[in-house]
């Protein structure tokens, strides 16, 4: 990890969400995550990369508390939101404290209109005026949603549904948002638009984002810091800049040759170079 302090993993003062050494077990037997520690820095995007089945989504679910409904359990370690421990809390309580998860595959309430979806997202607030303000805030970031406010959300395009899912999450006025694969199945232009908005949200609303992405190029372009997960363990962490330069990341996540040029699918090999995870 380069010279000097770059390699130190001291928990920074500005960290918003601290996951310390958690272990997650499903059905009391299947060990999915082992010794996972992640710092989500305040007012920045932190990304979690990994192949299918590495345990990224499980990590997000463990943080947001949704894990319980899937018979999963955090058996070791702690999760702290600011000063408060949130491991073992129920998902709705975690949401009240200002942490929400945006699920993979944009799960909107398809029968409801756009605006009704947003109102549903504002359930943590009793005060109608606050909900109203929230809706205006969401519309200011996602003008497309305003155009479609009375349309049934099932008829929105994929990109709009993703925006709606993010907008609905913002309705509870969270400090931390867990974004699970927002680019999944979307056209590149829309992906760019959504990522642009997320970056603005981070800057203007001082939001902290933990981003899980398959599209590593994109994720490392917007994130400040990144983690790489394999088989339920963090195998590498570092600033996004360092990760982009890492030879293993280039080969296995960015699909680039050492020279930086993109590989052709024709050259796909039936063997893999051994990863060394040197930083």
């Amino acid at each position, binding site marked *: 990890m380069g*010279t000097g302090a770059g390699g130190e993993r001291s928990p920074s003062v500005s960290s918003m969400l601290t996951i310390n*050494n958690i272990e997650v077990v499903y059905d009391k037997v299947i060990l999915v995550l082992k*010794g*996972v520690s992640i710092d989500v820095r305040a007012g920045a995007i932190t990304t979690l990369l990994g192949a299918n089945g590495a345990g990224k989504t499980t990590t997000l679910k463990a943080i947001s508390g949704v894990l319980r409904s899937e018979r999963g359990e955090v058996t070791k*370690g702690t999760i702290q939101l600011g000063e408060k421990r949130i491991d073992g809390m129920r998902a709705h309580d975690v949401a009240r404290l200002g942490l929400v998860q945006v699920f993979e595959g944009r799960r909107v309430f398809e029968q409801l209109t756009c605006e009704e979806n947003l109102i549903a997202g504002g359930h943590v607030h009793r005060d109608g005026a606050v909900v109203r303000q929230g809706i205006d805030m969401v519309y200011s970031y996602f003008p497309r949603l305003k155009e479609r406010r009375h349309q049934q959300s099932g008829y929105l395009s994929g990109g709009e549904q993703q925006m709606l899912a993010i907008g609905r999450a913002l309705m509870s006025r969270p400090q931390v948002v867990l974004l699970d694969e927002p680019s999944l199945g979307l056209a590149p232009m829309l992906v760019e638009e959504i990522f642009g908005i997320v970056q603005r949200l981070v800057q203007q609303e001082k939001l902290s984002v933990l981003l899980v992405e398959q599209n590593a190029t994109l994720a490392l372009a917007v994130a400040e810091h990144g983690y790489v997960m394999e088989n339920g363990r963090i195998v590498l962490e570092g600033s996004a800049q360092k990760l982009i330069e890492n030879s293993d990341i280039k080969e296995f996540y960015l699909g680039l040759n050492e020279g930086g040029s993109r590989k052709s699918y024709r050259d796909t090999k039936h*063997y893999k170079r051994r990863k*060394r*995870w040197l*930083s």
Partner: protein
Amino acid sequence: MSLVDGTGTDTLPKLLQRNAGESPAAPGIREKTRGVWQTLSWSGYRDMMRDFALGLAAQGFKRGDKLSVVGDNRPQLYAAQLSAQALGGMAVPVYQDSIASELVYVLNHAEVSVIVAEDQEQVDKVLSLKDQLPHLRQVIFDDPRGLWAYDDALLTSFEKVIDAGRAFGKLHSDYFATELAKGTADDVAMIAYTSGTTGAPKGAMLSHRNMIAGSEAFLEVNHTKPGDNWLSYLPMAWVGDVAFSLGMALAGNVTINCPESPETVQRDLRELGPHVMLAPPRIWENMLTTMQVKSSDASPLKRRLFGYFRGLAERCELKKTDGVPLTLGERIGLRAGEFFVYGPVRDQLGLRNARWCYTGGAPLGPDSYRFFRSFGINLKQIYGATEASALIACQDDAEANPNTVGRPMPRIDVRIDGNGEVLLKGPNVFIGYFKQDEITRDALVDGWLKTGDAGFFDKQGHLVIIDRAKDVGQLTDGSAFAPQFIENKLKFSPFIREAVAFGHEKPSVMAMVAIDMQTVGAWAEKRGLAYTSFMDLSRKVEVAGLIADEIGKANATLPDVQQVKRYLLLNKDLEADDAEMTRTRKLRRKFVAEKYDAVINAFYNGASQVEVTTEITFEDGRKSSITSNIVIHDLKPAEPARKAA
């Protein structure tokens, strides 16, 4: 009468022909594919050798041509080597995990004209080098996966060569028999490139006589039965695998078994339960580590049982080697332990059927050695050298002892010269180095092979190897410094994977240590220490403390001056790809000393940390480098009062 004196048994391919004639339907070679052991009988194995040889002949393979195999252990690759030998050619097996630039040297030096590559990975490697290989005429692949779109003129499949061979055989019905009969015991069977702990690899020419006579000598003192199972999982280029998977298996009718892949070796081993086994120290150390990790993860009851019976077994083993009779209680205890612990552990390791197991290639630490023996595994030491067809001395069942390598095998004369170097003479001693007469003259003096190892005979006539003669040095106070001895002490700890001791012409001993990621990782998890990579783990203060304790334990068993005074934890494991180890995982001491020169300086000038820039070579030959500050730790001297357990 020795096999090499019979005209029908004086070469390796002739031995296969003999086995196919005597027991055509008995299993000759097996391979696990998609989870199923596929058996090829001796006659099937012979047919593969014959057809492939005819296929090679059809393409113009002549006597004296060289064929190289590169890949994991596969029946096709063994057969291909025998095919080349049947035509009077030589086999040149190379390490499958070598990076391309390492291969160029060996393939060019040996003037290899045909390469049999296992799969796409090896084919890519070879094709990337083809412009640098003027002798290369053909590349033959076994596994076609991913190769359908390749249209290189050099490339053809194993199947096609076999088909061509069958067609050729129909036209020339006695071609194979004639060529086979032309072979004599003194033809060169293979050029085995030494892994080279020093400098560039050297090609040792081994004749059929060397290999067959060596195997015969070995079989005389080690019991095998036709149909015994042998697991061929060691690199095909290592002379140890050559001597056993080709020499011993063919001479002794032992069935060869090729595991599915390197990842499944442990499982395949257990499934097969081989009757005879050879593994380098590294593998035994890994087994020991795995066992210790598993026992510490087990339930408290199991853990206590394991701990108790392990202690008992080790005490009794020490008593046995000292010749002290066991008490009745101890004997009953061992019986109970056999039922509860030793038997099941042997079963888990896949060694329940094993009549004998050997450790060879490098010395195994006495503590690891004793541990396996105490668990009822008949582990013995074998001593050999590439230049001696891998076989020089081995231990008898009744004379196992961690400190010796046993007696020389029959018909092999061993003597110690004035400088303490081990010399030997016998039918297994090689012909010479290929194209390196000068080095051959240095190594072979009046028919005596100089091994380069320092040793002596003990009172019982057992050979004791001290260290590589070159490695044994002196501390500044004049006392002897044997680095390997100290390193083995350190590596007995399950937390230490590799260690390099320095001290030659220095006032004291210092060590670089590479942690074992598996065990130290498990240890850290138990203590709630978060970590990411090897480097991150090595940096933890707590880990440094753990290793300090482990080194302390080793120090307690060492004389004062030999004790490790300072150490550091490497930020990466020592790797063959980075040229720090040979492909058989022996330390390349001189290279490491040069590469880590900054560390050695810092060790002895008292610095508390050192900036190390290490060059990394990836498997595909690309390079990069990492720079980091590594802390050097001081150790308190071990208390002399504490005695080793």
